[in-house]
């Protein structure tokens, strides 16, 4: 039943992709260089040469460990959100923006428990982008799904559309903001794979580093387009899948052990 819609969607996307390709070729025909090895701030716009993604090995994700969540909070200034005066504590915990959620799954038959961090899955065909009425929700050329908060009107359609409940809404003015993580009342935001790091030539995310520091190494970040890169190597070595793969979103994040 969803087939015709699906087809239309793909055609539209491939047209837009082709248009972007023509644009890129005419602007900078000689500038398709490899930039992965450079550890310098980028000077050329991101391209589809890379598609950033992650593999999360849930068998290594420890119960009760919050290292990735805490690291994300620090990296992206989420720990600078202040609870509004007189706000109910439980309500605040539900409302404060959080980019990673630790999720615990239990198989009711076997009793087997699985822990995993759940964040924006950086879909190739992101539903949040499809529904955004202003074009604020967009997919960057390198596969990172982001919100242009200059045009976000805070309608929260994207939060409804996201199958992973990955997005947060900023309900209150945030007094203290980091340069690398602007944050404003009335906008939606979510994990951006530490885009500021990538743009500065640092190819890792805060959550990956924190997980490795804890000795779990459950998160592997890398380039899905690079067949010899660490992510593709890891993906080739162990069975893994996309969450909600029946939605055919082709997520950038893959999970093993679920």
């Amino acid at each position, binding site marked *: 039943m969803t087939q015709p819609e699906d087809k239309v969607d793909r055609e539209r996307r491939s047209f837009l992709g082709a248009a972007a390709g023509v644009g890129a070729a005419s602007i900078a025909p000689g500038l398709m260089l490899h930039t992965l090895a450079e550890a310098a*701030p*980028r*000077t*050329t*716009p*991101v391209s589809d040469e890379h598609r950033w993604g992650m593999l999360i090995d849930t068998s290594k994700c420890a119960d009760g460990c919050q290292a990735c969540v805490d690291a994300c909070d*620090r*990296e992206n200034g989420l*720990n*600078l959100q*202040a609870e509004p005066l007189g706000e109910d504590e439980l309500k605040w915990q539900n409302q404060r923006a959080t980019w990673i959620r630790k999720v615990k799954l239990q198989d009711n038959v076997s009793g087997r428990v699985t822990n995993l961090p759940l964040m924006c899955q950086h879909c190739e065909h992101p539903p949040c982008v499809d529904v955004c009425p202003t074009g604020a929700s*967009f997919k*960057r050329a*390198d596969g990172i799904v*982001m919100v*242009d*908060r*200059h045009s976000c009107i805070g309608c929260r359609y994207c939060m409804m559309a996201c199958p992973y409940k990955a997005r947060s809404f900023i309900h209150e*003015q945030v007094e*203290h*903001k*980091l*340069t*690398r993580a*602007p*944050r*404003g*009342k009335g*906008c939606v935001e979510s994990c951006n794979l530490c*885009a*500021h790091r*990538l*743009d*500065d030539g640092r190819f890792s995310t805060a959550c990956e580093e924190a997980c490795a520091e804890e000795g779990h190494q459950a998160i592997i970040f890398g380039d899905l387009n690079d067949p010899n890169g660490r992510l593709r190597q890891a993906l080739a070595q162990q069975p893994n899948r996309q969450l909600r793969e029946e939605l055919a979103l082709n997520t950038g994040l893959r999970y093993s052990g679920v």
Partner: protein
Amino acid sequence: MAKAMHHGGLVVIGLVGALLALTAAAEGVGDFVVQSSKAAQSEHCVEPTEFMRRNHMEVIRHQRDTTVYGGIRSTKHSLAGCVQCHVGYDANHQPVPVNADNQFCAKCHHYAAVQLNCFDCHATVPPGEAWNHETTALHGPMDAGGVPQFANVLPAIRQGEGENQ
């Protein structure tokens, strides 16, 4: 006749006085660079001053799209660059937010009666200073509500090891 000349002289003196007053006022306008900021040491902004006075918003907006969609954060027209250079410091060498009263951004926008809302979302002090703690995350946990201390990281950042955004 003499009376008429006398009146004419008074008018001329009055006009000259008014002109002088206007010139004095004009000199005052635009002189909003805070003395304790790095900008006060520079000869001019990233572009000629007259150009920046009229066009800084266009320049910043162009850079904004380049940054959001293209991931280019390091070029000279970034808002972070404005803040880095134009932030003033108090007697304790702590940065004063650029949108605070009498600071660079706020003072001129107040004079021109233009609402400034960049800083509803963007940082008002340079990266690595005061709450804008680029390096504190690496140097230990941050106080929940307080402003962290930066005595040992400030000099390194001032020398330009800050984040390029």
